[in-house]
């Protein structure tokens, strides 16, 4: 049955016109997708994978153009299509799903109309027939209450629902090829898992070919049959999922795998090894291998003198890599290290004590509404953190983890409860009223590298100002102090003269860390500090935080939604859902059964790299509820796959203390949970 590939790129060459002339972004790209096959394209930011997608649909914009090679879709050269032929292909034979679903939907048009447009346009269906088709499609993407959904506007749906609509819009005309460009980036983990599952199922049912583009290798493993790894516009390795992830042959692929934390291992056993250096900009492409400058296995001369050919891997048909040393490298294994000294550190004194913390906002609803619905961001938080420890706080959007960080640092004040830092009650003290000593003690590192530094201030000024305010140092000693802090975060001293727009994401985040260190804080609160960074950069920042903490004996409160990073970094973990801590304990205990049902779902949703370890999955249906409508009983009862009955909705569940500091808040007894989860009991899916 398989014959000509659905999509074939032949020596594709794409360049962008810029002020400096024509910049070649993709020099020579060749791959193809067979009918019914799902191919993943992975790489970090700037590697050109999105450019590939845009080139295929011929939407490169005014600056981009295909300057060489060919893209064949269903046998026809895409560049040779007339405008009306192109319009007939787009949306009909070839459809696309995008990264930011809210922005990709027209905010002033109902979702139903946007759906119906497609078959009305391409198949000439009338309104009633198109409506019926739209309803069918909504059912397929598991959006319940189709009739009502059709009348909704995009902003009235959650992120996951919006993405399902975009997927429905793409599939409604039964395309031959579906291009998905980072479709789950920005979605919560459990929502992401549900969407990926959906894609798998739809693919199977319709036999659509898929080109799945992502920087997250785990998502690719879930959905695709084959994968291509891109670096600096080139396809450095290609093969089936199993081949590439079990036996990576290109040093970049190996590097990527090395710097990914895994849910199974922590910092003591398997250190993250970041990839040194940075990708060269497209305008300065080196001769020879593009990765040579950062490669651990580089051999000057062989690797840097001329263009590298793509060589097949012996014994693995379909697997190829662009490396001259392809056959010489040893088999890849994640390095294991003996458990380090940190494992036996005696617990320090209590640095942070939180009791019964509550935080409520009053939010105005709508433009005309005088009704104020209170947002209950935190509902009774109890925590103890000891000096020198890393506590990770995990949860999805709306769980209150950011609010907790803000209350700790004083950017918000508590509505009720106690927060003690080094014995001082600070919960009701806003940061403006806190004494300087306290401000020095607790500092914060933020999430977004683009807005963590003031774009109008130079790096030296930002750090120097923090020094001046926090340490009250006289002006003269500033420059050397600034240089010293920059060295701590492994940045060269002359970076002080730069503005943030000349820094990369990783560099900006390092400067932010240096700024936070200006006062020698005892407690560092890091709110998703690496979520917005590339994988290889994440590893470096995580290692840096680890090192800083170890050297200074500081306490690190690490907030994240990424369970693998948490597993790697934390000593203790608190799992939050809708303002409550549902599970808390040492990291080893939390990541092993018995789990709180939410922790179980989170863990099972984490995309895992091992193609063999695709175990039974708990998929949560339904969107995350809003913090204005928290149920009376257990906050998770609305989506819990292990809900045992009305008691879960009505009665707040008890806190069950297990071993050393491990506690779970659930109506189900711990032993019962352990039994259910050890047996891998297939959980009955809860809908709604």
């Amino acid at each position, binding site marked *: 049955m398989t014959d000509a590939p659905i999509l074939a790129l032949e020596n594709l060459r794409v360049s962008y016109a810029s002020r400096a002339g024509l910049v070649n972004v993709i020099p020579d790209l060749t791959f193809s997708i067979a009918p019914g096959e799902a191919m993943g394209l992975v790489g970090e930011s700037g590697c050109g994978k999105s450019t590939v997608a845009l080139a295929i*649909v011929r*939407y490169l914009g005014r600056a981009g153009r295909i300057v060489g090679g060919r893209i064949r879709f269903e046998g026809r050269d895409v560049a040779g299509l007339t405008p009306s032929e*192109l*319009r*007939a*292909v*787009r*949306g*009909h034979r070839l*459809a*696309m799903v*995008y990264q*930011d679903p809210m*922005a*990709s*939907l*027209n*905010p*002033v*048009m109902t979702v139903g109309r946007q759906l119906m*447009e*497609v078959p009305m*346009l*391409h198949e000439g269906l009338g309104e009633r027939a198109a409506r019926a088709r739209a309803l069918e499609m909504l059912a397929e993407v598991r959006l319940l209450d189709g009739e009502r959904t059709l009348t909704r*506007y995009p*902003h009235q749906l959650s992120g996951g629902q919006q993405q399902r609509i*975009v997927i429905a*819009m793409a599939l409604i005309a039964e395309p031959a090829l579906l291009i998905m460009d980072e479709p789950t980036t920005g979605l919560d983990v459990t929502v992401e898992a549900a969407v990926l599952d959906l894609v798998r199922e739809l693919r199977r049912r319709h036999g659509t070919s898929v080109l799945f583009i992502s920087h997250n290798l785990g998502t690719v493993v879930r959905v695709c049959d084959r994968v291509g790894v891109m670096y600096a516009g080139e396809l450095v390795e290609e093969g089936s999922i199993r081949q590439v992830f079990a036996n990576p042959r290109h040093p970049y692929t190996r590097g990527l795998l090395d710097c990914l934390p895994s849910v199974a291992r922590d910092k003591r056993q398997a250190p993250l090894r970041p990839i040194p250096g940075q990708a060269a900009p497209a305008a300065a492409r080196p001769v020879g291998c593009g990765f040579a400058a950062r490669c651990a296995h580089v051999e000057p001369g062989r690797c840097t003198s001329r263009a590298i050919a793509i060589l097949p891997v012996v014994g693995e048909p379909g697997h190829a890599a662009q490396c001259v040393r392809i056959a010489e490298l040893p088999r890849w294994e994640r390095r294991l290290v003996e458990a380090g000294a940190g494992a036996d550190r005696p617990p320090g004194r209590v640095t942070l004590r939180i009791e019964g913390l509550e935080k409520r906002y009053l939010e105005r*609803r*709508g*433009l*005309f*509404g*005088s009704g104020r619905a209170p947002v209950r961001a935190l509902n009774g938080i109890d925590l103890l953190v000891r000096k020198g420890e890393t506590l990770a706080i995990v949860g999805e959007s709306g769980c209150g983890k950011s609010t907790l960080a803000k209350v700790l640092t004083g950017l918000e004040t508590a509505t009720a409860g106690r927060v003690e830092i080094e014995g001082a009650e600070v919960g009701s003290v806003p940061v403006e009223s806190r004494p300087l000593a306290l401000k020095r003690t607790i500092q914060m590192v933020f999430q977004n590298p683009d807005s963590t530094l003031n774009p109008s201030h130079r790096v030296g000024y930002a750090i120097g100002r923090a020094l001046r305010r926090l340490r009250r140092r006289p002006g003269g000693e500033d420059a050397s102090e600034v240089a010293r802090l920059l060295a701590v975060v492994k940045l060269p001293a002359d970076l002080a003269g730069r503005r943030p727009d000349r820094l990369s994401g990783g560099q900006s985040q390092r400067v932010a860390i240096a700024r936070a260190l200006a006062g020698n804080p005892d407690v560092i609160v890091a709110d998703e500090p690496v979520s917005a960074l590339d994988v290889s950069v994440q590893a470096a920042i995580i290692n840096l935080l680890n090192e800083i903490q170890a050297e200074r004996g500081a306490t690190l409160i690490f907030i994240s939604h990424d369970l693998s990073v948490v597993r790697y970094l934390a000593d203790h973990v608190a799992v939050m859902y809708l303002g409550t801590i549902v599970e808390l304990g040492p990291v080893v205990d939390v990541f092993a059964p018995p789990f709180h049902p939410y922790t179980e779902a989170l863990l099972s949703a984490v995309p895992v790299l091992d193609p063999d370890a695709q175990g039974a999955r708990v998929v949560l249906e339904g969107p995350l509820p809003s913090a204005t409508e928290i149920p009376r009983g257990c906050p998770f009862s609305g989506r819990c796959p292990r809900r045992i009955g009305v008691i879960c909705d009505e009665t707040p569940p008890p806190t069950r203390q297990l071993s050393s500091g491990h506690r779970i808040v659930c109506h189900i007894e711990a032993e019962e949970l352990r039994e259910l989860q050890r047996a891998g009991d297939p959980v009955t899916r809860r809908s709604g």
Partner: protein
Amino acid sequence: MALTVARFVLKHVAFLLLTLLVVSFLVFTLNELSLGDVARKVLGAYATQEQVELLTREMGLNRPVLSRYVEFLGRLAAGDLGTSTRFKLPVKDIIWHRLANTAFLAALAFACIVPLSMLLGVMAGMRESSTVDRAILMFGTVAASVPEFALGVFLASVFVVALGWLPGTATLVAGGGWSVASQLVLPVAVIVLFDAGYVVSMIRASTIEVMQRPYIRTAILKGMTFRRVVVRHALRNAMINPITVILLQINYLISGVVVVETVFAYPGFGRMMLEAALFKDIALVEVGALVAVAVAVLTQMLGDLAYVLLDPRIRP
């Protein structure tokens, strides 16, 4: 939904009343600062001081401000708008007539401005940096830059002096061989050119911004023609911001066209206000200011309403 609309209207009416109160009080107090002049103006430059003071007392201008203000409000509520010292007529005989004239001019201008600027603005914005766009941008910028009186002078020099196709004044009295309709052409043209230039730039900017949004990419990649994408997807989004601006133009068209009225000697509301202010005709100034402010707040309310109707994101 009905409840929210009612609440909306109520809020705006309350704001209208508040604004009217504040403004009228301010205007009233301003008059307080130059009392002697009023009586003097009425009597003329040769009046003696005693005569001025007598008239001042007679007109009750020497009593405390607050009590006079309350009386004024009382009279307004009763429908007595006072008497104009400039025109020597009851205010209500002048003001509504002049307002109607200006409103007529405004309606004509508005009817031209809206479709013209929408067409040009969207045409320019949908293909940024194309020749059409550059041309429209230049036209819009230049038209909005030339002050109204200069526009009037330029157009008059061409169409009245050089070509003799149109009359130079618009007194609304058909005479000298010029029909009333022909008198209106130049004033309307000046207003339309000046105002449309500004509105076109706003609509163009909004359209450009909308065309860069991802949902336009989604629409194009669904396989629609460009024109359809613009009309079905871009247009409504692009008009959300400009609509308030367009409705605010009504405010300008009522009160701001005094310059045009002066150039063409048009008997309008703005000219009336100018003369009243120069002559210190208190009654006319006060009532006129109130009317102008009422128009302003009403148009603002219309603008807000339109915004809500167009953008579903505002509704809960």
